[in-house]
């Protein structure tokens, strides 16, 4: 026969302070776990959401980031003339040849970072249609004007509309702010490619991005470009390329999250063992009584194990609730792969919360195992004789 669950819940409630302290211990471990995973996840999803699946990015062969790539004007013209590229209503191909650099600029807190600057072609806003001006207006080609992603505004110095940003020997006026669904573009400065080119590296683009007419034709398109003897390029899906850019720091943050929380979990499990041990020690007579009533050892063990898991899960739920305010907190760091500043927000997903709860349950289970076994093995007479 099974021992009713209500027995366990009442037992926990009978010692509110002890139960709460143990649950809080588990809650903080879960909170940390969720917080660290949300950080890694926010970073990764900012980059993953940057590319479109039906967009293609062309880089120089061997280049592992936009910054180290280079595409000459001639190559860009050849790519533009390729078949299979989607066209706008007026017949222009949806292609943008970009200048991409990172420029050393101060954050508002005085520390310095590398602000990504992208010079784009006139079709950039149709190729990257997630980019929407939310304040001010677009830059005018040929003029020293730029627009800024929302992620930079208020984070870097001189980012208000009307402010001037100095690149090399030239001042650029900020004329607008844009959004791009929280993607990495929101951490960039955009301007006209032809105006920015002479300011930075001279007559060479870094990448060419384009929309495919038919997303399923990617392999054929890639083969055509990479096989063209006039070009020395590699072709990637834009979505895959930006996802790759998050691989190093994303993985590092994940490893830190798992290592730190596993060590913490060991400490929390010790705590859980102690709490359960003490609870069981205080209930020797109860346990003996349960045995006398005819409950099997197996049921008693299951019951105490359940109680431990229950306690830990309560802590897990508390940890999940405590973690919710973290969601959406914005921060920024340097993505070493692109070498540019990347603003992103902590992102908690249902999956991460579930992982936190599973983690809590496992802690409870391991913590409850030894004490529960001890409770089950107790000898009736010895239990009843005490006190």
């Amino acid at each position: 026969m099974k021992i009713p669950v209500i027995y366990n819940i009442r037992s926990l409630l009978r010692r509110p302070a002890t139960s709460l302290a143990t649950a809080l211990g588990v809650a903080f471990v879960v909170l940390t776990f969720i917080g660290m995973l949300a950080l890694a996840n926010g970073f990764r999803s900012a980059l993953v959401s940057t590319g479109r699946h039906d967009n293609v990015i062309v880089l120089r062969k061997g280049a592992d980031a936009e910054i180290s790539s280079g595409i000459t004007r001639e190559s860009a013209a050849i790519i533009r003339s390729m078949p299979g590229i989607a066209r706008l209503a007026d017949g222009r191909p949806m292609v943008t040849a970009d200048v991409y650099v990172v420029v050393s600029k101060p954050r508002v807190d005085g520390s310095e970072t590398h602000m990504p600057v992208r010079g784009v072609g006139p079709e950039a806003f149709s190729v990257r249609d997630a980019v929407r001006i939310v304040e001010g207006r677009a830059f005018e080609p040929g003029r020293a004007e730029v627009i800024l992603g929302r992620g930079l505004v208020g984070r870097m110095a001189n980012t208000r509309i009307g402010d001037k940003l100095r690149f090399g020997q030239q001042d650029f006026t900020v004329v607008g702010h844009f959004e791009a669904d929280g993607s990495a573009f929101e951490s960039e400065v955009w301007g006209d490619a032809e105006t920015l080119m002479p300011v930075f590296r001279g007559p060479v683009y870094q990448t060419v991005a384009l929309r495919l007419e038919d997303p399923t034709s990617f392999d054929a398109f890639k083969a055509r470009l990479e096989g063209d003897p006039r070009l020395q390029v590699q072709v990637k899906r834009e979505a895959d390329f930006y996802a790759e850019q998050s691989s190093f720091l994303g993985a590092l943050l994940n490893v830190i999250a798992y290592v730190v929380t596993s060590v913490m979990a060991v400490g929390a499990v010790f705590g859980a063992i102690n709490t359960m041990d003490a609870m069981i020690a205080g209930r020797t007579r109860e346990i003996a009584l349960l045995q006398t009533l005819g409950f099997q050892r197996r049921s008693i063990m299951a019951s105490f194990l359940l109680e431990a898991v229950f306690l830990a899960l309560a802590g897990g739920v508390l940890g999940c609730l405590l973690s919710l305010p973290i969601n959406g907190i914005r921060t920024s760091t340097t993505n070493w792969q692109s070498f540019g500043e990347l603003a992103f927000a902590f992102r908690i997903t249902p999956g991460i919360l579930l992982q936190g709860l599973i983690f809590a349950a496992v802690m409870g289970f391991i913590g409850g195992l030894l004490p529960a076994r001890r409770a089950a093995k107790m000898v009736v007479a010895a239990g009843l004789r005490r006190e």
Partner: protein
Amino acid sequence: MTRATLVRASLRRRLRRTILTVLGLGIALFLFVTLRTFLHTLQTVGDVGSESRLIVSNKLGIVFPLPMAYRARLASQEGVHTVGYASWFGGIYQDPRNFFANFAVDENYLTLYPEIVTSDEHRAAFMADRTGALAGVRLMERFGWTVGQTITLQGTIYPGEYQFTIRGVYHAGRRGFDESSMLFHHRYLDEIMRAHMGGEGFVGWYVLGVSDPDRAPQIAQAIDAAYENSASPTRSQTEKAFNLAFVGMYGNIGFFLNAIGMAVVFAILMVSANTMAMSARERFGEIAVLKTLGFTDGAVLRLVVAESLVITGLGLALGLGGAVLLFNLAEFDFGGFVPGLTVKPGIALMAIAIALLIAAVSAAVPAWQSARLKVVDALRYVA
């Protein structure tokens, strides 16, 4: 019976609980010390940078090159005794995940960096080979390279595959100096540049040896002023400031890791304090007996405090001692990821303060309760 015997007896009363509490505390304090040390090392990476070396880079950012023609002007700058230069190569060994720093340096570079310690034979062999390379001892271990071996790096900035022959191994002459980079000759890189884009004649950054570190700021100012209106304006700073700027690029990620570290400590401390308070509460009966035997409140308090001090003390020895052993003595550095991890006295003091706080908190509740305890109630109490 002495007080020490009593404390020892009560700690043994539930040995498993005592051990687990000590271990839990040890883990919490170890994590705390490790996280603080990790952050501290990152933040003070500038200390590894010398103040008698100036780094001159392009004002636009480190990814922009400077003309090699600046060299003569920099060499004639008063107060500068040696000019060296280097360029980032960014080559990949077999797989992008095998990232390590590899860059081209000129013949003055090794003179400027006495921290790069290598034997005379290795140095001579490196200098004599056009495609020779000098690799840090950590890097050699990581990939199992041997001196004389030819390795191939895939260029990211310069398309193609390039061969290098490892001619020497270097060690760090100072703790915390990187031992996992690869250096090769700038003249080899010049050839590569010439073959590829005609982009020859540029360097990544200059390193200047300054005779009098006190005058470094004025020298930096003079150089930057001279190039202010040129096509490639410069930014000169001491190596220390340059390194610190790199740390700044992490942004407030450090703050978050720190906050997380505090949450860790708080969590486990809470659990430990609870356990300790719990075991004291369980012994109301015993305390009542002690009081009946004539122990004063003060004596009972001292017993409770002594017990919690022993437990936290052991936890502290385990956590702090473990960290000191691991980082300061065994020089563990996460496989070269963060060289020079050292538990600083300030961090150790913080750990000690936290341990004392836990001891106080976990002793306070039972001590206060037992002081107010009526013997009759206590003997009736069921834990």
